[in-house]
């Protein structure tokens, strides 16, 4: 199923919706044009990734971060994207923080219940350490890219 990277498409329905909302009412788009824009978007992501990765490597980091992507936008001369992207990033971080706090609260409640049972306390501690480590890994927000 592996094709060329340019064949990795973004969903047509979403692309079409984004296009339609960007254009005035009553404007249509041919299938060929829509398909070409979709492909262009894929190429854009590939190019931006490559650019961003250069910044990561310059910084001697193995993980692409948001800053690398912003630097890539600058390099690709899409400076006008930077401000809306920063806003989106802030909103995303707030949302992630909210999710994390919700799951931490759940964990606290769960711990309260298990502690009060007072059975196999040592095993519980070991499990908690594992949970914390796993959470830390999640917090690092690293997606393993198998290459």
């Amino acid at each position, binding site marked *: 199923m592996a094709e060329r*990277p340019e064949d990795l*498409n*973004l*969903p*047509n*329905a*979403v692309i079409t*919706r*984004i*296009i*339609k*909302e*960007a*254009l005035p009412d009553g*404007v*249509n*788009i*041919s299938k*060929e*044009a*829509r398909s*070409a*824009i979709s492909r*262009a*978007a*894929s*190429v*854009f*992501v*590939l190019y931006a*990734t490559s650019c*961003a*990765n250069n910044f990561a490597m310059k910084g001697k980091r*193995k*993980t*692409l*971060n*948001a800053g*690398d*992507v912003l630097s890539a*936008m600058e390099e690709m*001369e*899409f400076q006008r*994207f930077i401000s*809306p*992207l920063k*806003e*989106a*990033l*802030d*909103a*995303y*971080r707030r*949302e*992630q923080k909210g999710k994390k706090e919700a799951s931490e609260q759940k964990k606290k409640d769960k711990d309260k219940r298990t502690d009060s049972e007072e059975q196999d306390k040592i095993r519980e501690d070991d499990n908690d350490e594992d949970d914390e480590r796993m959470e830390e890994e999640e917090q*690092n*927000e690293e*997606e393993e*890219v198998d*290459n």
Partner: protein
Amino acid sequence: MAAAATAAVTIGPTAAPVAEEGLSGEAAPAAAPPPQALAPSAGPRLSRLPLARVKALVKADPDVTLAGQEAIFILARAAELFVETIARDAYFSAQQGKRKTLQRKDLDNAIEAVDEFAFLEGTLD
């Protein structure tokens, strides 16, 4: 169904409810978008593009070792902005041709006319 779709699409001009021709096959996935957060007023919208697909593109680069979730998200949002931008530039070309339907040649014109789109040359064929 339409109500659910509109509710999930968030702020900004409401998506054209009726004239979604050409989306019949894809209406199902579009009507049940991934659970993105709703920005109450005119706050920044979180991405509509599925992060999994963006991640697949990022993984396609052999030089990339790891990519953080935030990076994937920002790339998705940037891709959206890119689509909006190129659509508008292509529309400018359609207007020149006094047409209300964007055609492939409008896209080609935009790519040629706009410096930032130079990276696309030769990639769309």
